[in-house]
Structures are given as structure tokens and as C-alpha cells.
């Protein structure tokens, strides 16, 4: 750990969140236990008080806004994880549904979704917020699907849930970036969802990535999951210019807004 980095951390990161009081920041630093960190504390405290003075009003006010944006994002993530967790659990508990050669894949995915539920609950609790309770799910979406009697439909919805998860986490990046620890954990979950999505897509004879807004042999009801994925303009760069729009769009996964992700999840919530 480099001194400049410690100073930078003290002056920037911690002040974006109300979760880290000054005392906690000290404790965190003290825990690192390196000589450099200890020496840096008085200097860091100086920097902190300066920026605290300068930003007192802004920090207090925007702090609560940041915190609610942060915990709202985690609550949304928890809802999506509840959905995936229950979906795979029911699937695995339904005798004869999942092809025996695919069991190991879904056991692995299910294990991760269960861990994500626990992790997010713990994260919310540690931020002083009560985790949302598990909704009641209807995976038939009012009788439109029969995933637990038709394995192809089970795979179809699994793909839709995983591709949605990837986009939904990405859509919350801006809301969790105020807290570096949470941001990193969210990214670590996000890439696991992407690994799942790729695997399930490939089990359905699709490519692991999404070309244009074509989900790949998916029912029209899942169109909102793929809407916007055809984008080939990234910060003004035309990603289709090199190898065409299929490769250009597939090279980037698009975000889903919280509203759009909630709308998709709501189809399966009673």
C-alpha cells in the first residue's frame, strides 16, 4: 500500500458514504497495521477535516441520498437473486425435470444464487437497512410458462433470468459506486451472472453472447430482456465498423434501468 493511495482514499472515497464515519475510517486504517498507514493517519486526518469543513452541508445531505440509492440498488439485486435462487431450487427439486447430464451445471448455478441472497442480506444489514423479504413468485407468469414440467421452458426462462441479471447489475453501477467495497462485490456478482448466462445460452445452442437484440430462439414475451442490446454506439465509437453489427453489439452488454429490471421481475411476482 502506497502512501499516496492511502491519502487519496482518505480524502476521496470515504466521504461519499455516510456508512463510514471518521472514526470508522480510522479504525479501518488502523487495522491495516502497516507502518506507512499509521504514519499517514495524522496527515490523513488533516486532509479529512479540511474537506469535511468545506463540504459539511453537501456531505450530510448528499450522503443520505447516496445511501438510499446504494441500498435501493442492493434491494433490487436481492429481489432478482431471490427469484433466481427459488427458480433453480424448485427446478432441482422437481424429479425428472433437469436432464441428468445438466444437473451439475444447475447445481453450481443454484449454489451461487443462494450465496448471493445471503451475501446481499448481510451487506444490507451491515449498512443498517433491513433486507427486503422474499416475494411470492409465480414462475408461470400467470399461466404463460410451464418451466417445471417442460425442460425446454425451464432452460428458456433460466436464460432470460441470467441475461436480465447481467443487465440489471450493470444498470446499478452508478448507484453503488459511492461505496468502493460494495461496488467491487457487485461487480464480482455481476461477472458470475454473466458466466451463468453464457453457459445456459450455450446449452440452448446459442452463442454465449447476445448479438443485436436477438435473445436466440426466445419467446416474444422475453423481448424486454434484449431490448437495446443491438446498440453499436459506445461513447461515440461505432462498434459495427470493424466486423459488422452482430459482433459490435455482442462485444458490449447493455444496461437495464432499475425500472425496466423491476418490470421484468414483476412478471414473475404475485
Amino acid at each position, binding site marked *: 500500500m*502506497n502512501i499516496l493511495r492511502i491519502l487519496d482514499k482518505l480524502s476521496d472515497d470515504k466521504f461519499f458514504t455516510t456508512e463510514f464515519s471518521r472514526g470508522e475510517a480510522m479504525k479501518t486504517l488502523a487495522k491495516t497495521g502497516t507502518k506507512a498507514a499509521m504514519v499517514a493517519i495524522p496527515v490523513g486526518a488533516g486532509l479529512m477535516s479540511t474537506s469535511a469543513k468545506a463540504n459539511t452541508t453537501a456531505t450530510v445531505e448528499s450522503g443520505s441520498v447516496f445511501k438510499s440509492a446504494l441500498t435501493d440498488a442492493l434491494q433490487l439485486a436481492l429481489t432478482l437473486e431471490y427469484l433466481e435462487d427459488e427458480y433453480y431450487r424448485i427446478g432441482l427439486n422437481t424429479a425428472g425435470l433437469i436432464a441428468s447430464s445438466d444437473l451439475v451445471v444447475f447445481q453450481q448455478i443454484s449454489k*451461487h444464487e443462494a450465496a448471493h441472497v445471503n451475501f446481499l442480506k448481510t451487506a444490507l444489514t451491515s449498512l443498517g437497512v433491513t433486507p427486503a423479504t422474499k416475494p411470492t413468485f409465480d414462475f408461470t407468469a400467470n399461466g404463460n410458462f410451464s418451466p417445471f414440467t417442460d425442460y425446454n421452458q425451464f432452460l428458456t426462462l433460466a436464460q432470460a433470468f441470467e441475461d436480465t441479471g447481467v443487465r440489471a447489475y450493470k444498470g446499478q453501477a452508478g448507484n453503488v459506486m459511492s461505496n468502493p467495497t460494495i461496488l467491487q462485490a457487485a461487480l464480482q456478482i*455481476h461477472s458470475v451472472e454473466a458466466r451463468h448466462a453464457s453457459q445456459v445460452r450455450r446449452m440452448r445452442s446459442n452463442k454465449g453472447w447476445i448479438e443485436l437484440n436477438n435473445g436466440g430462439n426466445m419467446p416474444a414475451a422475453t423481448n424486454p430482456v434484449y431490448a437495446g442490446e443491438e446498440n453499436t454506439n459506445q461513447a461515440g465509437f461505432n462498434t459495427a465498423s470493424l466486423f459488422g453489427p452482430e459482433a459490435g453489439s455482442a462485444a458490449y452488454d447493455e*444496461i437495464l434501468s432499475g425500472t425496466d429490471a423491476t418490470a421484468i421481475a414483476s412478471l414473475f411476482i404475485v
Partner: protein
Amino acid sequence: MKTKKTFSSYIAVKENFTHSFLVFQYQIIILLLKLKKSLKIIIMKKTISISNQGATLDTSRRNFLKLSGIGLALAGLTFVGCEEGVVVDSGIFDLGQGDVGILNYAYALEQLEADFYTKVVNNFYSGISTVEKQVLTDLYHHEVVHRDFFKAAISGATTHVLPKLEFQYPNVDWNNRNSVLATAKALEDTGVAAYNGAGKYIKTPDYLVIAGKIVSVEARHASAIRDLINPGSAAFSGDDIIDANGLDVAKEPSEIVPVAAGFIKTPFTWKEQGIG
């Protein structure tokens, strides 16, 4: 620049640095006046050695050795300069500070991946299946798009753009399926861990979103490559990379760069992250 330095010694180093830098600047001015013509040549030569323009992966053994030699010599200079707290204009590119540094870091990794798959698709290993050919071709497309995107995006934001890097693959047998897929797996998993670990250093929300759009595609790649190696198993998101909390790997730049450096011939530093 290591953790053991106390703050007072840091200040001393900084003062020393400022003093040395002024002396250095003064010397440069004198030099400029006296040796205007020859210095220009030196600077031009340095520029060539940084960008390695014109040199390709097919460089002869002699060129390769020559380039490596320059790289090592310059790397040595920077290291000494850093330890002494004196900046030596060694001609080695530093990735930069703040978001520029992160973007150049991502650009370096995307250059590596793009270069690797370019070699793969130009010389597919024998006995490659249709599915494997399709996957590797798509990965080649995506990584080249990522690479060129970063070049354009960074060039639009700053003049401090990482030059084109030179690569080497001493342990890759291009005609061997296991060797190529194992390297692809390592590169994709490394890419995921790198983006996951660098996200928290990004200050501009738009850049974070872009990184997020790319990292999930890297994870999709990693999953597919892992499944090509161990079909139908749990390897696509195996216990070797996903922990008990269901979290993928996240690595600090200081952990990633030394590993990637095994493939990268062109030296660079990233002082803000304590690298070089």
C-alpha cells in the same frame, strides 16, 4: 516508493525530487542551447523505442533481442530513478493518473487479448471443431473491437494514450488445442479479475458503465472457453474462481500487471498504482 517509507522521508524525497527536477530542467535548457541538433535526434530515437512502430510480431530474432534489450535497459533506469526519488526521463510510458490511468490499463489488457486471438485465428490449431472455430473467431472480433474502442475513447479524452504494445508468447504452442485454450482461459479470467478490481478506482460514472459493459462479455467468454475445455461440467464458473459468497475473482492492478507482463514486451509503469 515501497510501504516502509515514513511520511517524513516521503517529504524529504519529494523535496529532493523538486530540487533535482529543477536542476534537471536547468540542465535540459543548457543542453538544448548547446546541443539542440543532437538532442533532437536522441528524443526521436526514444520515441521510436517507446512506440516500437513498424516492428511486428514477426520480427526476426535479432530485432526481438534488440527490442528486449532496450526495454530492459529503460526499465532499469526507471526503477533506479523511482527508488532515489528522482524522475529520470527514461522514455517509458506511465499509464497515468486517475481515470486516464485506468483506461490505459484496460487498453493494455485489450491489446493483449486482441493480439492473442489475432494470432489464434490466423493459424488455427489442427483438428479444431466448428464450434471452437466460431467461438475463437467471435472472441477475436470482440477483443479487437474493445481494443480499438479504447484507443478511440482515450484519444478523444487526452493525448496521454498508451502506444501500441509488443507481445510475446514463449509458452504457447499455437498448433496445440490445449495450449491455446488454456491461454485463452487465463487471459479471459484475468480480464474479468482485472476489471472487477479496477472498477472502484474509476471516478467517472460513464467510464464505470463502459467497463461494466465490457467485463460481462469477458466473463461470457471465460465461461465459454472453460466449457470448451471441460464440457458440461461446473468449470464455467468453477470453485477455483467463485468463492463461497458466490463472488468472482477481483484483483488489484498491482497483482495483474506482473502476470500480464509475461506476455508484454514493451515496458510501462503505473506509478499511481505502485507499479514500476
